[in-house]
């Protein structure tokens, strides 16, 4: 077990489902990644993924509450309960999935939290593989990476408006061209 608190900008550690999530400060992400690569031996950047938690828990979740012990329909008082997920620190989470090519294939999720418009330092200087991964998150989630050599849209068209994977992006929101009104 590593001492995660030595990671620059360390905030907290969560162990869940056999996975380690280390939350770091947003402006120390690049340092944290370099530390994970050089000191902890996580030599592959597997993935960069952002999640939009807008309206998280807003609708509430009713129904059967699953626990590690399983769930039993016939158990009294398990129906109709409200389970509100934990409040998140900010709107977006940005996770870096790291892998170490060594015995046991240890993995680490470095995570930072940010609000809409907050810049994050690009980690392309640490791992070249971050190039397209960051462009994809910029394109679909609107995360702005500072210092990225070419932060252009990757999957959507160059002149696309908005960031489709955000929760406030309307479904079917593509404008209809050549409508009868024209």
């Amino acid at each position, binding site marked *: 077990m590593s001492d995660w608190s030595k990671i620059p900008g360390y905030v907290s550690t969560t162990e*869940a*489902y056999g*996975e380690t*999530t280390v939350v770091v400060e947003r402006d120390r992400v690049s340092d944290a990644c370099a530390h994970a*690569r*050089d000191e902890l031996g996580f*030599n*592959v950047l*597997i*993935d960069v*993924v952002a*999640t*939009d*938690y807008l309206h*998280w*828990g807003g*609708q509430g*979740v009713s*129904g*059967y509450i*699953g*626990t*590690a012990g*399983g*769930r039993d*329909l016939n158990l009294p008082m398990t129906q109709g309960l409200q*389970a509100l*997920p934990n409040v998140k620190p900010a709107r977006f989470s940005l*996770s870096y*999935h790291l*892998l*170490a*090519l*060594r*015995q*046991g*294939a240890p*993995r680490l*999720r470095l995570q930072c939290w940010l609000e809409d418009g907050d810049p994050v330092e690009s980690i*392309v*200087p*640490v*791992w*070249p*593989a971050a*190039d*397209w991964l960051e462009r*994809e998150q910029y394109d*679909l989630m609107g995360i702005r990476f500072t210092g990225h*050599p*070419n932060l252009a*849209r*990757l*999957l*959507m*068209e160059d002149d696309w408006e908005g960031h*489709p*994977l955000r929760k406030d*992006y309307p*479904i079917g929101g593509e404008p209809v061209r050549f409508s009868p009104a024209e």
Partner: protein
Amino acid sequence: MSTTLQHVGRARRWPIVGDPIYEGSRIPSRVPTVMDVPAALRETDDILQVNFGPNHPSTHGVLRLIVDLDGEDVVGLSAVIGYLHTGFEKNMEQKTWWKAITYPERIDYVGYQNNELVFVLAIEKLLELEVPEKATWTRMLLCELNRIHSHLVFLGTSALELGAISMFWYCFRERETILDLFELVAGQRMHTRYFQAGGIAEDIPGGFFPEARKFVERMPVALEEYLTLLDRNQIWLERTQGIGQLSAADAVALAQSGPVLRASGVDWDLRRDAPYLAYDQVDFRVPVYTGGDVYDRYRVRMDEMAESTKIARQCIDRLERMEGEPWIADDRKVVLPPREELHTSMESLIHHFKIVTEGYRVPAGEVYVAIESPRGESGCYVVSDGGPKPWRVHFRAPSFAALQATATCSKGALIADLIAIVGSLDAVMGDTDR
């Protein structure tokens, strides 16, 4: 069955660990995925910029390469992707977990069974659901058949693109047999939607095993035929050996995985190094080659087909002894009740109705699951808010990673080599663009 972790030809090693830390500057460009035209050439009139794709037969879909040519030499290159972006991740957020299982198969439409597996494993990890042994071995069997299928498509098409047309027919002959097997077991030739959270949708029909056994007996013979056709073919050798080289350090820096990584001399396979399903209980080797060129990527896939056949044979042996065992978990909150119970049990009818209409609920949390798909590490990051629909689904696409290396692989290549290089990275554009 003994657990063996063997290795082809050499002692087990982890080539990258212990090396001086790479800087990333080995990829000599401001933008790592782009090959820049050298400054001396930039001012001359000799550079011709060509669009290679997006509609070129050898781009396996809709990959566009913007190539700067000096005569026949490729001096600049940048890959443009996104032409097949269909918003799978956004779509899956609108579907219940149960319905979303159909989507991953269509993301990587050649390695469909493996992609389905990774999503189902992610759901099961969040549900902490125990899967019966028979389902695990069936999944392993189908995933290995799918791996052979995927490598056959690679082999057939990339040989076809280099002019060895007959390879295509031979490869698709064996591929046809695999698709027939899938039809036999799941009712669909591709995109089976056979894996469910908790197990598999139906038991394997009785007539499947004799046919599958015929196939695993046939496959080694077929592989010999392919080797005879290609490995002594001077044109094939000259067009693949030494072409599209990728060093081990560059491969790791660019997050390559699967056959591309193993052809560059990195001994890494998630099936052996982070076993999922029951891969720790089968005997197989991980082929590793050190050349890092197109030829070695082809050899890695050829060897993998032989190893997958071995695994498939062990799965069949095991599954034949599991006659009558349960194939899906007995958790009525997640798993559909048996069809015959619907006529007699009100409780089952309610469960069936609730699962189909409302969907089952998955506890809140975030997980990342990775498997070794035919193309490399296929990963699935899933966030649940405790409701019947995924909050966020993201796929780590091995093709996406592979195509990032196009520029680095193409250093010093000729325009004709690009076809071999893109083919050898074996990218599926549906996987790349999602």
